[in-house]
């Protein structure tokens, strides 16, 4: 015991209860934020999905024909849902946590007894909530244009959850390092969007030349989209085991990194 630490007379707090209620509070706060600004959080992805379905379904899709043995719209629907999940999980956390840093209200949590891992988990869960809400809205839009067969529900749920967690944590890291609003949008614009469009959302990588296929397999989003697509259609360009191992590893590495950075106070403490 250090020289200043005397025997505490104050009864110890129940840290388990504090952590659980604290986690719930962060998630509720994030959910309230998503709902409060629904015009910015929910609607845009649904509108974009409608445009994709109209263009690729009614206008171009008929000329493309079948892909992977399925009608083109049916083939791209899981990819479009996953694209919305990825971008929204990421952008929810990056904007919310950076906003908290910028407005200094992150201090509300930093002075509280919540450990770093609960704060990271709470924000990640908030990102997952938005990813799922938007994913559901895009799914509803999809059903207007095509029918979705469910091949394996567990694969669908596992793939969407792991992908959402991974990108929510990615958004958290982006927010930790960001020093201004420009840096909040760099990664989504210059990394996330290209990787998503080249991640097999609109096509099967088997259509690509050999070198491009090899390069595509290095894109983690290709594995996520294909795992999710397998859950609906039962077809995939990637090995399912590899895809899930990659998603689990990515989520664990990102979570650990985020917690370590929070503990160090990177970007939030002097």
């Amino acid at each position, binding site marked *: 015991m250090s020289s200043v630490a005397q025997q505490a007379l104050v009864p110890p707090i129940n840290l388990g209860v504090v952590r659980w209620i604290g986690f719930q509070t962060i998630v509720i706060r994030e959910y309230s934020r998503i709902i409060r600004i629904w015009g910015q959080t929910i609607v845009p992805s649904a509108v974009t999905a409608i445009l994709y379905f109209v263009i690729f379904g009614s206008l171009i899709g008929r000329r493309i024909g079948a892909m992977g043995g399925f009608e083109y719209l049916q083939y791209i629907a899981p990819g479009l849902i996953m694209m919305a999940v990825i971008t929204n999980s990421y952008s929810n956390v990056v904007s919310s946590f950076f906003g908290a840093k910028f407005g200094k209200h992150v201090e509300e949590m930093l002075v509280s007894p919540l450990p770093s891992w609960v704060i990271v988990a709470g924000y990640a869960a908030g990102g997952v909530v938005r990813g799922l809400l938007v994913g559901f809205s895009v799914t509803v839009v999809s059903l207007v244009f095509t029918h979705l067969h469910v091949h394996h529900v567990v694969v669908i749920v596992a793939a969407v959850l792991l992908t959402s967690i991974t990108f929510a944590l990615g958004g958290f890291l982006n927010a930790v390092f960001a020093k201004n609003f420009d840096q909040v949008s760099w990664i989504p614009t210059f990394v996330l969007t290209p990787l998503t469009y080249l991640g097999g959302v609109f096509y099967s990588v088997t259509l690509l030349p050999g070198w491009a296929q090899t390069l595509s397999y290095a894109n983690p989003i290709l594995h996520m989209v294909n795992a999710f697509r397998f859950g609906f259609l039962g077809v995939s360009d990637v090995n399912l085991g590899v895809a899930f191992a990659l998603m689990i590893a990515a989520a664990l590495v990102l979570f650990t990194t985020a917690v370590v950075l929070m503990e160090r106070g990177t970007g939030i403490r*002097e």
Partner: protein
Amino acid sequence: MNALSVRGLTKTYKNGVQALKGVDLEVERGDFFALLGPNGAGKTTLIGIVTSLVNKSGGEASVFGYDIDRDLEAAKACIGVVPQEINFNMFETPHTIVVNQAGFYGIARSVARQRAEKYLKQLQLWDKRDKMSRGLSGGMKRRLMIARALMHEPRLLILDEPTAGVDIEIRRSMWEFVREINARGTTIILTTHYLEEAETLCRNIAIIDDGRIVERDRMSSLLRRLHTETFVLNLRNSLSAAPKLDGYISMLVDDHTLEVEVSKDQNLNDIFSRLTTLGIEVLSMRNKVNRLEEIFMRLVEGRGAAGETRAPARPELRGAEVAVAPAVRRHGGQTT
């Protein structure tokens, strides 16, 4: 059992600034404690370390016996903090802000809602509970931060400039409120630029300057150390020169205002008696400056005069309460 114990606390920022140079401080349980110092002295850094907003470079600190290195969560659960800068989400309502804050301390939402009503009513914010916080006035924002800090009913409440920019009426009602909180057993540490506030509220005091505690005493003991006070007398009739008051330093500020410096071994009766003899009628009288301010200036400026390189204290003090002119106060009088 101390509410706060700090030993050899040091902090050096990345830019090389040494904000704390080995601070030792103890604040007793139940105390109303003033931590004073000019800007840049290290007050906010010290508070930041205790509340884990700033990483320390060295030393130890504990809150109610919980070491911040080993029992940080338990230590933080004991603390409520009202920071110097507004730091709540301007796009949330006061009710949401305080209920969420309780949640971060593990308070169930049903209990949090009851406490929100209690504290928002006590701080006269209940009718604003569902308005966007960015629309609140400056004083309301300050009160909201106090309500937020009280939601988990902390044993140690740290108020870092809680009344900055608040008008005098609200400031005094806030004083009454924090006095009640202290009377109910909550230890309070107050930093303020309004020295009148510290003198009125606090029982013990530490003065920090240039990263070190330069004074730590009971408020009453510290004030007793003040050897002289300057009184400002408003006169009925105009004078053309300061009257001859042997043994006193006096100065005619204008034709109706006389300043007289009175030491501890002198008394006001003697002055009035002499003025009466000279046919000078005094209409009213007031202390020229707050007594604590006098001591503060001497301590802080004394260190500066001793050759240490530091920013002057004066520009950082603000408000009518600290509008003083030490040079005139000490030496500008006419000895008669």
